[in-house]
């Protein structure tokens, strides 16, 4: 009689080991460029640092408690929150609107598709410079138009009331191209026969939009909402060029504030703490989004 012995640990883990081998290149890359900096940031957030960013004094959670009571940081959080509210919904609705327009089968629609997505090909720096001109108080196009319409002039980037809105406008313009392209791709993936079938049933445009287009587009919409939210939280380039966080801190969004804290004030400890807080906020928002929205998403 032969006894069947259970295979040893070495044998049983064969699949696991092979799998790990396949993952190894990504794990190494992630470790060097992602995990290490992240852990380092978390580590630094518990310290006061010297000029070179080396940990000097362990202060525990003091960096955090300082930040959460600092009016400057709270202002940054508020500005960031407002900025996200200004840019994400408007940006996505605008991109969806353009994508719906560009999805119609018309002559020469290719031209419009190219135009609408063209902002994707312009760097943040270049488009910021363009917007700098547009917002110029005396020679900028916007104020010229206001002048012609006999409306009061606006100090777009210099007025604390308007600066954040101005940045939001330029950001929406910059991001629409990408969202537009992704949404258009999603729209074109919807089977034309579904619309034909609904037309035979007599469904109008908005009925089709509500019952076919939006549900069928929901995975794409979900993706683009997630990406846009994360992008909005991380806005940096246009602020650096257009306002440098001013006037009177009104556009000092968190990432810009981190940059100033670290590379102008050389406070790497508090900068790291801010970065960690931003990370947690983005994580929570994204998780919430998955919890609340994903149930409504229809995956094929």
């Amino acid at each position, binding site marked *: 009689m032969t006894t069947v012995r259970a295979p040893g640990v070495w044998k049983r883990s064969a699949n696991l080991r092979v799998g790990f081998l396949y993952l190894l290149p990504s794990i190494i890359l992630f470790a060097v460029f992602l995990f290490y900096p992240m852990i380092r940031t978390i580590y630094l957030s518990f310290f006061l640092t010297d000029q070179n960013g080396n940990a000097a004094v362990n202060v525990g959670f003091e960096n955090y408690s300082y930040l959460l009571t600092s009016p400057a940081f709270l202002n940054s959080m508020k500005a960031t929150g407002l900025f996200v509210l200004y840019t994400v919904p408007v940006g996505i609705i605008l991109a969806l609107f353009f994508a719906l327009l560009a999805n119609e089968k018309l002559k020469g629609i290719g031209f419009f598709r190219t135009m609408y997505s063209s902002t994707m090909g312009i760097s943040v720096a270049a488009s910021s410079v363009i917007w700098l001109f547009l917002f110029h108080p005396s020679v900028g196009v916007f104020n010229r138009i206001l002048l012609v319409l006999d409306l009061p002039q606006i100090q777009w980037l210099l007025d604390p009331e308007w600066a954040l809105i101005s940045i939001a406008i330029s950001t929406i313009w910059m991001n629409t191209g990408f969202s537009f392209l992704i949404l258009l791709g999603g729209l074109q993936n919807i089977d034309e026969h579904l619309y034909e079938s*609904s037309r*035979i049933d007599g*469904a109008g445009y908005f009925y089709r939009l509500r019952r076919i287009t939006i549900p069928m587009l929901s995975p794409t919409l979900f993706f683009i909402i997630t990406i846009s939210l994360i992008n909005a939280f991380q806005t940096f380039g246009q602020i650096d060029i257009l306002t440098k966080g001013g006037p009177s801190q009104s556009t000092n969004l968190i990432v810009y504030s981190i940059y100033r804290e670290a590379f102008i004030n050389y406070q790497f400890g508090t900068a790291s703490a801010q970065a960690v807080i931003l990370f947690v906020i983005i994580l929570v928002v994204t998780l919430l989004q998955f919890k609340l929205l994903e149930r409504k998403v229809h995956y094929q």
Partner: protein
Amino acid sequence: MKKVELIDVSKSYDKQVDVISNIDVTIEPGEFFVLVGPSGCGKSTMLRMIAGLEEITGGIIEIGGKRANHLSPDKRDLSMVFQNYALYPHLTVQQNITFGLDVKKVKKAVQAERANEVAEMLGLSDFLKRKPRELSGGQRQRVALARAIVSEAPICLMDEPLSNLDAKLRAHMRTEIRRIQRKLGITMIYVTHDQVEAMTMGDRIMILHEGKIQQVGKPIDIYNYPANPFVATFIGSPPMNISPARAVPTKSGIFIEDTIHVPMNEEQVAASSARSLLAGIRPEHIKPIVTGTESGNRIQVEVTNVEILGNETVFSFQVGQREWMAKWSGQWDIAIGDQVPILLGSEYFCVFDEETGELIRKPEGLEHLSIAKEVII
């Protein structure tokens, strides 16, 4: 019940080549009209033109006696089953079925009631809560059918609605569709490339080839008197055997491969002189020679292939360059290579003009059985 009339309709996608041309046909109210043809002949295109999903580039379409060329699809009072089902993947089977009712603002309770009724009829009751992706191909097809039936539109267009079902379910659905159509008195325009479906379901069938009408008529007339060689070989399984033939003035008839004689009357001979001809005979009209068989062309052939299909035997043999087939009822012990004496009843032959395809000689003596005459009680 509504009439659908196509008057000299044509269609071209690229403004150069017509994929459909000169279609003239009237589909009567309450008729079951079947459109058959090989793949790519323009069946779906024609259906889509009737539905209003495709521009008509020439001619007139009238629905219910009214010109409908530019009528939008929902004003045409019809329902349609798409070739690829076109089910809404994000909606449940029930929601798919009631979509059209919801558009028309039918009350929710009525919607559910009608959906249940139709689902019952098509055996979908167990799947009402599922999404289309959780169904098999055949079940999806039935959902598409249910969606068309539930709308109770007076005209129904179906584009190969049974192509994905197994043979048994297909036979069942054939009678079911036919029954529903009769009960509701729907005008049905039904596309298929399955000639069995065409023969069994249609009040009339239309055969389309490369966008042109080949023949319109009752299934049995089309089977017996095909208008041209294309129809002759398209309808019937195995197809009609067709070979080139040559007229011999002195013998009052024509010869296939100099051996098979097909007699013709003077009129027919006159119509066929100096033209290249095609002669054809259906496989079931090629008969075994047994004692007492009537006269005709008796020839000896060498069998090249045999298929026994339970109650009938089909074998092939060479006639000149062409391979012909014969279908005998019963199980015959025939092996490849055997020499088999066969009888080609000369009255059964069709003769076509090779250039125009016109039928010059109709087959005669087709036995038409009727219970009153044949059965003795």
